[in-house]
């Protein structure tokens, strides 16, 4: 089977309020950036997969509102479909379409503008409307429940979570695309205001506006055309039970997604073989949990982009991890590191219900 490559990667700057750009403008910007990075034009793209969510966009069939911006109307029109979920799952769909043999290239784009709605209401709508929504939980308070379950179970050191904050915000401070670009000290993190105990302000990712995009291609198509492709070595994904039906201090779904991706990539000892990882931590403790489930041993090799604590646009966050992991393999990005093998992780659903893991190589 012909290998698949990430032929190009692009993203917008992530900010609290991209007031001068509509969400379609963000999609266009990320798509053009990925095409330029791949050395391709929209005419080279055989099909398009977008990731969006109607609640964040505030309209139904929001996928059709961004089709043009993702190049789907170009020429005679391109086969386009949409994933409602994190953009890294959309990339799996895009890769599958190439693996089907019907296409050589897929453009994958994911976006959201959290600034245009109310995140506490939109994420309250993640819950069952009859039995759960009236209680008033949202993604952040659910994160508080998971945080306590995690801390009670594993009893990490008092400042282990703060260390994640300091590391990621330190990396993020050098990332011109990041939403939060000020480094923080452990003391500042530990003294930031309580949001949903034990979570403090510094432990919680921002709600950003932004978009991310990749061009996936058959390796034989990319050869000679695309200047800096990285090879997809293995992908895995898995969904877990709802947050009320599983222990929140572990993630069987992430273990399974990681196991599948590692097996397909031929990775036997992830703690030694994964040189750089970009994981989707919506909260500082989640990076500890995801690292544990993915057997990632060296904190400084994780989230060198600044991670989600530095920039987090819902839906786009996982695809942005794939962008950053690709850059690291190319020796680029805000905090380069020597890497032959890199990992990108995305999640969707409350308290990390479903997970997607990509292993990439040079």
């Amino acid at each position, binding site marked *: 089977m012909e290998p698949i490559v990430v032929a190009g990667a692009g993203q917008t700057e992530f900010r609290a309020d991209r007031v001068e750009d509509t969400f379609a403008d963000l999609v266009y910007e990320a798509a053009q950036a990925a095409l330029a990075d791949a050395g391709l034009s929209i005419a080279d793209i055989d099909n398009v997969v977008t990731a969006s969510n109607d609640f964040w966009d505030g309209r139904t069939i929001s996928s059709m509102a961004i089709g043009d911006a993702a190049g789907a109307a170009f020429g005679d029109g391109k086969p386009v479909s949409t994933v409602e979920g994190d953009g890294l799952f959309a990339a799996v769909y895009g890769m599958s379409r190439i693996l089907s043999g019907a296409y050589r290239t897929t453009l994958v784009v994911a976006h959201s503008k959290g600034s245009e709605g109310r995140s506490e209401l939109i994420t309250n709508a993640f819950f069952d409307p009859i039995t*759960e*929504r009236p*209680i008033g*939980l949202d993604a*952040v308070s659910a994160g508080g429940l998971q945080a*306590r379950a995690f801390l009670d179970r594993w009893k990490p050191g008092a400042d282990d979570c703060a260390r994640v904050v300091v590391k990621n915000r330190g990396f993020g401070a050098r990332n011109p695309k990041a939403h939060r670009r000020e480094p923080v000290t452990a003391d500042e993190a530990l003294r930031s205001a309580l949001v949903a105990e034990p979570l403090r302000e510094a432990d919680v990712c921002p709600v950003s506006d932004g978009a991310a995009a990749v061009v996936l291609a058959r390796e034989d198509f990319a050869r000679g055309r695309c200047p800096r492709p990285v090879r997809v070595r293995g992908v895995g994904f898995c969904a877990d039970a709802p947050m009320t039906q599983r222990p929140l201090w572990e993630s069987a779904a992430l273990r399974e997604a990681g196991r599948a991706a590692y097996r397909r990539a031929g990775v036997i000892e992830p703690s030694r073989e994964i040189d750089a990882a970009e994981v989707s931590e919506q909260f500082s403790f989640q990076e500890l949990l995801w690292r544990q489930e993915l057997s990632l041993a060296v904190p400084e090799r994780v989230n060198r982009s600044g991670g989600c604590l530095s920039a987090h646009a819902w839906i786009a966050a996982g695809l942005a991890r794939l962008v950053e992991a690709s850059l690291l393999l190319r020796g680029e990005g805000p905090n380069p590191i020597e890497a032959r093998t890199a990992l990108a992780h995305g999640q969707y659903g409350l308290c990390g219900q479903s997970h997607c893991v990509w292993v990439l190589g040079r």
Partner: protein
Amino acid sequence: MSPPPPETLARESRIQVPYAWSAGATLTRFLKGLRDSGRIEATRCPACAKAYVPPRRTCGICFADCAEWLAVGPQGTLLSFTQAAYDSPAHPRPRPCFGLIRLDGADTALLHLLGDFQPGELEAGRRVEAVFAEARSGSVLDIRHFRPVRP
């Protein structure tokens, strides 16, 4: 000094669509139990014996019908808790405390509010009990909240 950024207009609105989500037969029995008799009922999977509350008609893990009913609670064990230190229009009361509670006899956790507790009284493993609302309407909020069990 740099000039002020150009004005960008926005249309402010809200999506107003009334919904009436049918509870279906299974959740209707559960909600009527709360409303009419202050009973909390679960369903059990015949294959794995897991007791679900709120009750589910099917067990996703076994892909089987959960036909058996059983009463659970009203006491249970607090698995985790948090307090929202911010305002949200979704909150049923200001600065709500949320709990993840495993009711006695159930295998899944119930998300609900916590109340009537002293500072420092909450911890994982704490025994809690349901406090029912006086006026009940067939809603999950017919349980007003859970409070610590005191001797």
